C-alpha cells in the first residue's frame, strides 16, 4: 500500500539511511507532515465553502453577496476567521466547564480524522488503511459525542434539545449511509479507499455509480442521508434557527464557535469527497497513480477536487432550495424509505454480482 506517509518514510530512509534508532522518529514525522498539510487544506476548503455558500445563496436570491474584501470578496472568510478569533470567549457560569471546553475539539477532530483516509487523487492520501471506508463511517459518527457533549455541558435547554436531536438524527442516518456504501464494498471486495478508486476509471461508465441500477440508487440514498448526517438543510434539526436558537452551539462564542463552524463546512467537503471517491471514480484517470510523472499526479488531484467541489455545490444548492422537514417526517423518511431501499439495493447488488459474474451494466465498454 502506498500513501503519502509511506512515500515520505521511504524518502527519509533513503536520504538518512535506515536505522533502528531513528525509525520511530521517521514514522512520527512521516505521518505528522501529511496530517498538518491536510489540516491546513481542510480549513482552507471549509473557509472557501463558507464564501461559496454565501455567494451562491446570494445568486439564488438575486443578491450580490460578500464583495467588499478583496476582488469579489474572496478574502471574506479570512476576515470572518479573524473576527471570530478576536471575539470574547464566553463560558456560561452554569456550564460544565471541562466538557464545554472539550466538545468543539471532539467535533473538529472527528471531522479531520475522516479526512486522513480520503484519497485526494494519485498518491495523495495520508494513510491508506485497509478498513478505510469503515473508518470513515465510524469516525464520522463520533461527531455525535461532541454534539451531545456541547449540548449537555451548555446547561441550556435549546442546546440540549439540539444535541439530542443531532444524536437521534445522525445515528439513524448512519444506517442508510453505511448500507449504501456497502454496495460498493461488495463490488470491490475491499474497504481500502485507494483500491476502491483504482478499480474505477476515467469514464463515467467505469464509475461505480453506473455499475448497476442498484448502486445508482445507492448513490442518491448516500447523498441525501449524508446531508442529514452533516446536519445540512433540509435536515438541519440540530440547529433549526426558528425552533432552537442555534442548537447545540447556542452558548458558544469566539473561536470555540469557529471550531463548530469549520467542522460543519469541512463535513460538507468530507461527505462530498467520499461520494466522489466511492461512486464517481475519485481521481482515477486511468493511469497508475504511483509510477507516473508528477504532472499526472497533480492532474488526478485536480480531477478529484473538481468532482468533490461540484458535489459540494449541489449540497449548497439543495440547502437554498428546500425548506426544513418536520422532525417526524425526517424519521419516517429514514426508517420507512431509506433503510428498506438501501437494504434492497445491497441484496440486489449481491444478486447482480452473482448473476453476472461481477460485471457491471457497461462491462463490455469498460473492458
Amino acid at each position, binding site marked *: 500500500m502506498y500513501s503519502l506517509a509511506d512515500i515520505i518514510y521511504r524518502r527519509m530512509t533513503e536520504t538518512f539511511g535506515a536505522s533502528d534508532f531513528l525509525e520511530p522518529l521517521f514514522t512520527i514525522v512521516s505521518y505528522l507532515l501529511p496530517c498538518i498539510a491536510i489540516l491546513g487544506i481542510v480549513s482552507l476548503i471549509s473557509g472557501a465553502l463558507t464564501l461559496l455558500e454565501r455567494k451562491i445563496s*446570494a445568486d439564488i436570491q438575486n*443578491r*450580490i453577496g460578500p464583495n467588499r474584501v478583496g476582488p469579489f470578496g474572496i478574502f471574506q472568510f479570512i476576515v470572518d476567521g479573524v473576527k471570530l478569533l478576536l471575539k470574547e470567549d464566553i463560558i456560561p457560569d452554569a456550564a460544565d466547564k471541562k466538557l464545554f471546553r472539550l466538545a468543539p475539539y471532539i467535533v473538529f477532530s472527528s471531522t479531520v480524522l475522516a479526512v486522513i483516509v480520503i484519497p485526494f487523487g494519485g498518491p495523495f492520501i495520508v494513510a491508506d488503511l485497509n478498513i478505510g471506508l469503515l473508518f470513515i463511517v465510524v469516525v464520522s459518527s463520533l461527531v455525535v459525542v461532541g454534539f451531545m457533549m456541547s449540548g449537555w455541558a451548555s446547561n441550556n435547554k435549546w442546546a440540549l434539545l439540539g444535541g439530542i436531536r443531532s444524536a437521534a438524527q445522525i445515528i439513524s442516518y448512519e444506517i442508510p449511509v453505511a448500507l449504501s456504501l456497502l454496495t460498493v464494498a461488495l463490488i470491490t471486495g475491499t474497504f481500502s479507499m485507494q483500491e476502491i478508486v483504482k478499480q474505477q476509471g476515467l469514464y463515467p461508465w467505469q464509475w461505480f455509480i453506473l455499475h448497476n441500477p442498484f448502486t445508482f440508487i445507492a448513490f442518491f440514498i448516500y447523498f441525501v442521508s449524508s446531508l442529514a448526517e452533516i446536519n445540512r438543510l433540509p435536515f438541519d434539526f440540530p440547529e433549526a434557527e426558528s425552533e432552537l436558537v442555534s442548537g447545540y452551539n447556542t452558548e458558544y462564542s469566539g473561536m470555540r464557535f469557529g471550531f463548530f463552524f469549520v467542522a460543519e463546512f469541512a463535513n460538507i467537503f468530507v461527505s462530498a469527497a467520499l461520494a466522489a471517491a466511492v461512486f464517481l471514480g475519485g481521481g482515477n484517470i486511468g493511469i497508475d497513480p504511483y509510477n507516473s510523472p508528477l504532472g499526472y499526479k497533480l492532474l488526478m488531484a485536480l480531477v478529484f477536487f473538481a468532482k468533490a467541489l461540484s458535489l459540494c455545490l449541489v449540497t449548497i*444548492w439543495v440547502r437554498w432550495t428546500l425548506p426544513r422537514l418536520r422532525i417526524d417526517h425526517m424519521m419516517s423518511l429514514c426508517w420507512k424509505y431509506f433503510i428498506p431501499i438501501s437494504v434492497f439495493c445491497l441484496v440486489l447488488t449481491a444478486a447482480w454480482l452473482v448473476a453476472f459474474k461481477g460485471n457491471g451494466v457497461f462491462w463490455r465498454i469498460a473492458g
Partner: protein
Amino acid sequence: MKAAAQYFKNIWDAVSTTAAGMRITMKYWLFEPSITVEYPDRLGKGIKAEDLAADRYRGFLGLNLSKCIGCLQCMRVCPIECIKITTERLENVRFITRFDIDQSKCMYCGLCVEACPASALVFTKRFEGACYDINELCIRHIKEAVKAAAPKSKAEGQNSENRTGRINEY
C-alpha cells in the same frame, strides 16, 4: 396493495417536487441578475443618491429665491412651525432677511408647498440628512438680505385656471 402504491407514489412525489424546486433555484442562480443597489458608495457612474428616489418624492424642502415673494404663507400654514421667515421694507422695496427651515422638525406634510403661490417652495429629492449636530439640519436659505420677487397682479393671482396649473406643475 393500495398502501404499496401509495409508498411508491410518495417516493415519486418526493423526487419530482424536489427536482421542480431545484430547477427553479438553478434558474435564479444562473440566469437572473442581482437587483441589489449598493447604496452609499457603489451606485455606478454618474448616479447620485437623489436619483434613487421616486418622482414626487418628499425630500428636503428647496427654495427658489428668485421666485419667492415673501408672503409668509408657508410659515403660517406650517403645523409645527418649522419655517421661520422675516421680511423688511426699505424705501418701498421688500427684502427677505431670513428664511430658515428646520428639517429636523419638518414632518414632510407638504402643506407649505401647496400653499406657496409662487411655487418657490418645492420638495427636492434629497433625503440624506445624517449629521453630527441636529442644528445642522436647520437650513438657512438666505445668507444676506434678498429682494423679494414682485408678486403677480391680483387678478392674475386669483385666476383659478392659473392656480390649478401651478399645482399640476409640481
